[in-house]
């Protein structure tokens, strides 16, 4: 770290992201705007002297006249997380590392890898790994009238309510609905339904009911900080699923399932 400190740093950012003090410094001031765009949603500038995570970004600069190119190098504290000739690739590595760091360590929050929409005062949470079709289903739910919360994380607070992770919805194929642009963070909601599903070509939507415990284990299976803070995770999850219903099943086309999910959430409403 001392070696890094000795390098010349031209500019820095200090922010709080979900309560965590984060610093980013770079030798190229023109990188700051790009770095700021990659901060987790809700990050706010903060006058903090001491940070828990310090990113050091050594820019590759522009190609020199002799055709030589420098690597773009990113360190998280003293650990190198990226070394690439491509600036976009290096900064993307920083973005991913920072997002996971915040997700794993944010105090009083449990980040669950999940798609989330709001529907009539309740959240529909769709936990799942990448490529399980979460974002597509979230887009279909939003197109059917639900409020966009996230296609990446369900952020649970100690009361078990879901907070938005207002990052624009990203689809691998297709264009997300206009309503999924995540302009501002909607209010936190209690979980109304947990949907454990995966896309399977031609599948008929015939979900089976899950118990609260099974819903809880489905959330834990995708909780980023479960290993880092298991006691906190296990305290939050039961509160999140306490008044929720939960279903599991393979799904076919997202548009066909979205309406059924919204109807099921209406039908499953129970007093909190």
């Amino acid at each position, binding site marked *: 770290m001392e070696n890094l400190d000795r390098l010349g740093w031209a500019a820095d950012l200090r922010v709080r992201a979900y309560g965590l003090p984060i610093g980013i410094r770079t030798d190229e001031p023109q990188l700051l705007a790009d770095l700021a765009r990659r901060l987790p949603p809700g990050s706010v500038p903060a006058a903090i002297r001491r940070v828990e995570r310090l990113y050091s970004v050594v820019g590759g600069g522009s190609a020199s006249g002799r055709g030589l190119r420098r690597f773009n190098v990113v360190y998280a504290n003293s650990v190198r997380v990226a070394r690439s000739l491509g600036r976009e690739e290096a900064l993307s*590595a920083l973005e991913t590392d920072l997002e996971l760091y915040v*997700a794993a360590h944010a105090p009083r929050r449990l980040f669950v890898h999940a798609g989330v929409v709001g529907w009539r005062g309740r959240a529909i949470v769709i936990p799942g790994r990448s490529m399980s079709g979460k974002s597509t289903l979230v887009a279909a739910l939003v197109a059917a009238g639900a409020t966009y919360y996230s296609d990446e994380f369900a952020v649970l607070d100690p009361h078990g309510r879901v907070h938005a992770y207002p990052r624009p919805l990203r689809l*691998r194929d297709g264009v997300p609905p206009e309503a999924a642009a995540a302009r501002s963070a909607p209010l936190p909601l209690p979980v109304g339904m947990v949907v454990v599903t995966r896309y399977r070509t031609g599948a008929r939507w015939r979900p089976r009911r899950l118990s609260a415990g*099974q819903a809880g284990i489905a959330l*834990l299976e995708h909780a*980023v900080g479960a290993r880092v803070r298991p*006691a906190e995770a*296990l305290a939050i999850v039961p509160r999140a699923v306490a008044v929720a219903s939960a279903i599991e099943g393979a799904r076919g086309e997202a548009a066909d399932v979205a309406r059924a999910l919204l109807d099921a959430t209406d039908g499953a409403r129970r007093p909190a």
Partner: protein
Amino acid sequence: MTRDGEAVMPRARSAGLVVETLADETLVYDLESHTAHCLNRTATLVWRCCDGQTPVAATATRLAREVGIPTSERLVWSGLNQLYRARLLDDVPAVSWRARQYARREVIRALGITGAVALLVPLVESIVAPVPAEAGSCITLVECLARVPPSCSDLPICGVPNTCCIQRGSKCQSRGC
């Protein structure tokens, strides 16, 4: 009532576990193996009876009374079997040896249990808690190439459609997924 049912008094493991009760189910996190378990109502009752003083036969009687399933030591052994495999019992050789003969599916079939009653048979469901990177949605190509099998993750490569970080030989590489 069997001789084993009277003689065997299993004891639940308590060290290194975080336990949360959820209505009539139980969530358990194992701090050593980083596995989480969901015990249904009946498995929860069986586990609670594992105090080192309650014989299997007495647990069977209690299950029948509190849950309304047939009085059967086989159901208790089925629960013990699953609890043992989930490492939620202290290692008692008599229990481990006996319990392995009582897989849940076998017990349901042997007792002729059908329909909703089958949901009352002891059930322990387990998952492995993810490391943070596994819970994420993608990793960069740089991160992927820096990884060593078996922790390639199989996650998609950020910004590159239809490619994932997959083990190839002794390296992690980006490949179609």
